[in-house]
């Protein structure tokens, strides 16, 4: 019996276990993952504290005389507006910071919605099987035969048709989250169902069934923690996907109203001026979008490889 090691409990012990673990070592030694993480967390922090970090408040009435100013290093640029101003005289940098806040919020909320929906349905389908499984997975198959963006457009369209254009502006944010979240649950459901099919045959699940533990408890306390690995990976990659989906929908004009800055609406309004030479209005938000989604994607890719024991180094 090995009773030399003392029990390790509590959050401090959990933290030290994490920093001693393989995952942290793997992270430390892959420069790409470290760079991606730094960029992502840097951008996220700037977005979260946009109210304090941004040099200007884009929601205050701007001075139209400041409109269309180029970035500070171009001729005609000013030190007050580092990345220039838009057609209404709003500071592009401040707009990007505030826009990123909205984009990140929509992305996270949409991923959360699709994870909760997909994981629950996948667990139920995999565990109970039979008709329930068939119904859930056929719905998933049908949804998968449409492009995601079309499903999101459809949901957005249905909501604005039933509530009218007037209330749509107020509902824009929750509707966007709903549209992206509902269009993206299928991959979580499929992955979770496959893992559940494996786990429910494991003997620790059978042991719980012998003891007459209710199915709901077996599902959420026994099986769920054992299948979360792949969900975390898809969720990370899904965040990048959701941020891009928000930008796409806003760019197409069905997402957020132009009054509310998000990366998508900024790219769209700036796009109108691209050919008249005011490139900074669309290029800077676009570069931010690329940086944000790329860093999340690279981090997610690393996480997938790090958590898969079969792709060993």
């Amino acid at each position: 019996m090995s009773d030399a090691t003392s029990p390790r409990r509590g959050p401090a012990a959990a933290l030290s276990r994490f920093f001693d673990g393989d995952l942290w070592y793997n992270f430390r030694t892959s420069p790409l993952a470290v760079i991606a993480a730094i960029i992502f967390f840097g951008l996220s922090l700037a977005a979260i504290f946009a109210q304090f970090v941004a040099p200007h408040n884009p929601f205050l009435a701007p001075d139209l005389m400041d409109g269309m100013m180029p970035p500070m290093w171009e001729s005609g640029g000013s030190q007050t507006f580092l990345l220039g101003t838009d057609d209404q005289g709003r500071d592009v940098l401040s707009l990007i910071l505030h826009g990123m806040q909205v984009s990140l919020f929509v992305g996270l909320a949409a991923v959360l919605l699709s994870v909760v929906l997909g994981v629950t349905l996948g667990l139920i389908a995999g565990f109970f099987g039979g008709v329930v499984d068939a119904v859930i997975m056929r719905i998933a198959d049908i949804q998968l035969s449409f492009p995601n963006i079309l499903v999101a457009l459809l949901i957005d369209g249905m909501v604005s048709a039933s509530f009218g254009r007037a209330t749509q502006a107020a509902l824009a944010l929750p509707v966007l989250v709903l549209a992206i979240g509902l269009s993206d649950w299928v991959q979580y459901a499929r992955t979770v169902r496959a893992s559940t099919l494996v786990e429910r045959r494991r003997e620790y699940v059978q042991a719980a069934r012998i003891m007459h533990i209710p199915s709901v408890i077996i599902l959420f306390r026994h099986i769920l923690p054992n299948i979360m690995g792949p969900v975390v990976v898809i969720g990370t990659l899904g965040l990048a996907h959701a941020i891009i989906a928000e930008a796409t929908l806003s760019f197409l004009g069905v997402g957020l109203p132009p009054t509310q800055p998000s990366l998508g609406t900024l790219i769209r309004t700036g796009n109108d001026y691209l050919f008249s030479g005011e490139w900074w209005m669309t290029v800077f938000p676009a570069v931010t979008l690329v940086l944000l989604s790329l860093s999340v994607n690279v981090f997610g890719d690393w996480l997938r490889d790090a958590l898969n024991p079969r792709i060993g180094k």
Partner: protein
Amino acid sequence: MTQADPVPTGFDLQASGLRKTYDLAPGPGRPKGQQVHAVRDVSLTLRPGRTTALVGESGCGKSTIAKMLVGLESISGGAVRLDGGPLDSQAARKKAWDAKRRIQMVFQDPYASLNPRWRVSRIIAEALAASGLRGGAAIKARTLEILSQVGLPEVAADKFPHEFSGGQRQRISIARALACEPQFLICDEPTSALDVSVQAQILNLLKDLQDRHALAYLLITHDLSVVHHMADHVGVMYLGMLVEDRSAADLFSQPLHPYTQTLLETIPRADQPGREPPRLSGEVPNPLNPPSGCPFHPRCAAANDRCRAEQPQAIAVSGGTVSCHAVEEGRL
């Protein structure tokens, strides 16, 4: 206590005429409606303080019987009775469980039978809560008590299953089963995944626990030396059927069925070095296409035309029954 049941029965777990058939999905070269008979007409009884063993080769239906007894597999035919009352539904099983008449199981693979994300204390606590124990302090005290019963130190409670060796995990598995205070314990190859040195420890632990709690064991194994050490009663299975079902003393001193005889002769013996173990010709028949008559006849030296045509019935012999035409006719 008065028994209202017209059929007087003891406090035992009885399986009578148990059957399991699996329907096969039709596919290329496989017609519709084909069935595999995994278990055919098996009867056995588990009594307090006694060990019944099931032996046989892989795929002969031993584990299927275990799963039917604990309710993990549905029953295709026959019945399982607990204290005379049928366990024919999950509701009936739940009722028996709540009345503290419990069947527990120890699984073969100690690596898969414990939730890898749960600490030992939580694994045991779940079993305690499932058997009606309430209150954090009471559960904690009982957890430590049970761990010491299976020979694990107190610090084991705060560890995860992957921090233990195979033998220690099997002890945790046994502790979880014991936490429910069962009367019947089904052990499905409890030692086959363990080192030989650890096997003996686990078997001795099981024996001690049986003496202390008057547990009824069903021991499923393919290892006859384990059976010899543990069992009071032995059922020898071949292709889903019980071919010999006798008390351990009678079976080991005078095996009757040709299959049992061959099995016993294959046990390695320290007192006869260099002895060539006998070999059975052929392989276990495909359960999809079982032979006519006696299932063992293609590999049996004593088989005749009757064995090939007619399925043998169980005949009474000393200490139990055997199903063999050759024994019945005195040809062996």
